[in-house]
């Protein structure tokens, strides 16, 4: 009996916490559908429903172009991080060469540095390369990730060495071993890195704001941020929420589709979210 009460109490508490967490999302979506005058009400439900907020917002900013840019940038960057970081992780885990631990320590050290610290030098580099207002500026700084290298290295170190020897005797090159033996065995690590990186890039607003000024090159978060605080929304909260909803929708869909893999990957990669 005592146990049942405890369980009931815990479940109630968790339900309240879950509602507290999920409510702002509902409120945001509700706000996009309500009449403008009711947007600031506590309830997510309005007296009538319409898609006017979306219509107004899409009439003012090229959001679909921004969506396209975000997809291109996030996709190329994620594929590149998976390929390049796993290559680096493989070399650090499995190849013997002089300076290996020094390189690894330098890579680890870069994780300690906040991105804001490298912002200015990186921007100067982008200007010197003539990459401002190009995809290169949005993608190249995110083509490799220290976190991904670390994760791949740890994962690859667990693969038995005999397997690599067998693959070498079978005739695989080092790249062949990585992509034909290690990749299929490292699905949890690939999915974890892929999702975390994709979400990170998708939500990144600061860097695009620095290197992109052209409207046609802007990504979703940048566009939404500019729209919401930059005056174009003309203080219409409903349209601001509509922009934010469209920005978060693709990533929520991706997360829901891959949720099962993501949780399994987190658990098996020993990574805490």
């Amino acid at each position, binding site marked *: 009996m005592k146990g049942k009460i405890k369980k009931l109490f815990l479940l109630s508490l968790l339900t309240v916490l879950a509602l507290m967490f999920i409510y702002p999302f509902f409120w945001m979506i509700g706000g996009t559908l309500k009449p403008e005058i009711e947007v600031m009400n506590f309830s997510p439900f309005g007296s009538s429903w319409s898609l006017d907020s979306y219509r107004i917002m899409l009439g003012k900013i090229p959001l679909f172009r921004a969506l396209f840019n975000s997809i291109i940038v996030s996709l190329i960057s994620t594929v590149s991080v998976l390929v390049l970081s796993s290559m680096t992780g493989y070399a650090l885990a499995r190849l013997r060469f002089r300076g290996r631990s020094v390189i690894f320590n330098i890579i680890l050290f870069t994780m300690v540095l906040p991105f804001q610290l490298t912002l200015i030098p990186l921007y100067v580099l982008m200007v010197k390369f003539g990459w401002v207002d190009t995809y290169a500026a949005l993608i190249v700084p995110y083509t490799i990730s220290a976190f991904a290298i670390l994760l791949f290295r740890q994962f690859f170190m667990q693969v*038995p060495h005999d397997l690599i*020897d067998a693959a*070498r*005797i079978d005739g695989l090159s080092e790249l062949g071993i990585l992509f034909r033996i290690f990749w299929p065995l490292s699905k949890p690590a690939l999915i974890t890195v892929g999702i975390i990186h994709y979400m990170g890039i998708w939500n990144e607003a600061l860097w695009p704001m620095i290197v992109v000024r052209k409207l046609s090159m802007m990504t979703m978060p940048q566009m939404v941020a500019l729209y919401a605080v930059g005056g174009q929304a003309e203080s219409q909260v409903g349209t601001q929420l509509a922009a934010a909803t469209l920005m978060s929708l693709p990533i929520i869909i991706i997360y829901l589709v891959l949720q099962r893999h993501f949780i399994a990957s987190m658990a098996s990669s020993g990574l805490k979210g």
Partner: protein
Amino acid sequence: MASVQLKNLKKAYTKDNLVIDDFSLDISDGEFLVLVGPSGCGKSTILRMIAGLEDITAGEIFIDGNLVNDQPPKNRDIAMVFQNYALYPHMNVYNNLAFGLKLRKFPKQEIAKRVKLAANILEIGRYLQKKPKELSGGERQRVALGRAIVRDPKVFLFDEPLSNLDAKLRVQMRAEIKKLHNELQTTMIYVTHDQVEAMTMGDRIVILKDGIAQQIGSPMEVYQVPSNRFVGSFIGSPAMNFIEGDLTGNVFEGPGVKVELTDIEDQSNQKRSITLGIRPEDISIGQGQITAQVIVTEPLGSETIIHIKLADNPLVIKYPQLVFYKPGEKIIINFNTARIMLFDTHTGKRLK
């Protein structure tokens, strides 16, 4: 099929850490050679150097008369079977067997033919669509053998392939590998730390210690005429008994034992420090002048292992019948003097 020549092989991981020192060996075409020795003696290192998985510090390796020092493993035409099977977990058995052939761009039909043949030899046909994790240890090792067979290599290399199997399966697989060698007649180099495997499988055995070959010979040669105390103690189960003492003329005297040796030519009567070696089966019970105390009796069904104490020196007797002695019981034993071996106490070298 091919011969393998190793000439003055050296391997050092660091300047002061010489793992293999000046190792030379000729392995004939179709021979089954076993490298045996305790952990860390360098046997696996030699095998890996032959495979090309380990760089060599100095020396030359010839396979089928060709110098292969700078050849990568895939170009040496060898196949290797590993202790941990090393099967690709994400591929089914068929693809595990076919993978090496696919990489060598064999036609599909030829691959299917070879896989079928290997599967028939090893009786793994019904597992072809299964993943390695669905197989038992013995089945996995068969698949690993199959992967080597389909390649039809010049040389097979085995790196302790049976160490992960249970005792019964090990005996069975031992016989199967030997049978396979008889069928294929391909050169096989087999590394093990198990002297029973070495004795039962090898045409020739190389006994290694600290990267140096202690003796190279047929199983019977190394058993009956060990070149030093290490070989004597390593080969044979239970291990050879050793008693340290002095030899004066042809009389050996050690703690609790005095034996007159028959075929000693030294008549100088000079006292020398000698270690006497005698195999457990060369000690008889019930007659003679040596009294020993029983520590424990181990009945094995067809024979009995008796651990005794001879003036605090522990010895083991292998008696060909089932007997039982109580711990502490006194027994009379005798050494078969014709089978006694003498070793230099300081160098360990065999003198007789």
